[in-house]
């Protein structure tokens, strides 16, 4: 009887389990953009600031020599408004970009941060210094590849 109880107790002891968290290591979701002028990659040499709307959070603050962008999209809005302001020594330009998108919840586990993936539907702008915008890849997720190509009016 003692032997029987011993193996039952051993059996119970073996059921104790370890747990590990398997969250995605690179879990940044950003909308990536690059600049060009007539097909040639360019950078905005003067100070570039991007805000979400006129009074929203600052997404990029006084960046100099900007060749590409990594911008967070809102979790719940159907359309984000991005105000791009370029300030030089003797000029100030402002272009507004509207990004229409879908929002898809991406849940991994209770222990991993939940985030949202997006699909860009449409992009339009006010053409002040950005001539046009091409959607290169509409899916905004963990992949670090260019989503939008900003075609500038000048090469700065």
């Amino acid at each position, binding site marked *: 009887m003692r032997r029987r109880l011993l193996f039952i107790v051993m059996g119970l002891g073996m059921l104790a389990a370890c747990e590990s968290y398997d969250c995605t290591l690179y879990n940044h979701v950003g909308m990536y953009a690059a600049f060009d002028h007539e097909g040639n990659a360019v950078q905005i040499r003067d100070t570039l600031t991007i805000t979400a709307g006129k009074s929203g959070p600052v997404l990029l603050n006084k960046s100099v020599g900007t060749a590409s962008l990594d911008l967070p999209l*809102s*979790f719940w809005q159907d359309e984000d408004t991005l105000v791009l302001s370029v300030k030089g020594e003797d000029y100030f330009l402002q272009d507004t970009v509207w990004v229409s998108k879908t929002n898809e*919840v*991406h*849940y991994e*586990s*209770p222990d991993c941060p939940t985030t949202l993936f997006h699909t860009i539907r449409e992009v339009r702008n006010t053409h002040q210094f950005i001539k046009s915008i091409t959607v290169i890849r509409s899916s905004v997720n963990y992949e670090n590849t260019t989503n939008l190509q900003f075609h500038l009016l000048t090469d700065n």
Partner: protein
Amino acid sequence: MKILPTFSFICLLTISPCFPAHAQEETKQKEKAPLLSGVAVSADLVGFAMKACNAKYANMEVGARINILDKYFPAAELGIGDCKREGAETGNIFSTTSPYMRFGLDYNFNKKHNGNRLFGIFRYGFSSFKYDIRNDEFDDPTYHQTISLDLSGQKATAHWLEFGIGLETKLWSFIRLGWSIRYKFRAALSHPEEGKPYYIPGFGKNDSNGWGGTVNLVFDVGKTKRKQKTEKQDQ
């Protein structure tokens, strides 16, 4: 994976007392069990204990099996998988309470018909279940918009296979107690894009494979007279 060597060592310690008895039995004349040697029902005590201890998940199950020649045991197990898990830092809550079932076979390695079993296990498991994902204060870190995330009623289906070993001994009359340890392979899982389930009822934490175990209280409810006669002869 550090559990594996420890598990093997404990298995050897636990099983080894059985082998001298087997060696002695080989010299005896081989006993013959009837074709239908009985029917048994069982309950897994681990699942109920885990539920009572408020563990993050519990598989509460009952089972039934048929004894054929005291060697082959076709078995069916039905259960309810229960899980409620909240991420400590994320506020994400996963919850489900859904049924599952397993079918398979036990093969008894003990040639002596004394009511004790050392058996190999094969099971096919299946669960079609619903689960809820919630986060009452889901915050957009850039735009600072907090909403209540509610993905209730997500549907998923899982299939898996289990292989394992077990030991079972007669406690008193028709009551037996035993344990089993099983290695599980997830064969298929379909779930919505929004989020995979944290837990699969009957399988455990959602992964490609995993370990599980049972401690079974077994009742021999349909023991045949021929078998009882055989057992009396053993004694």
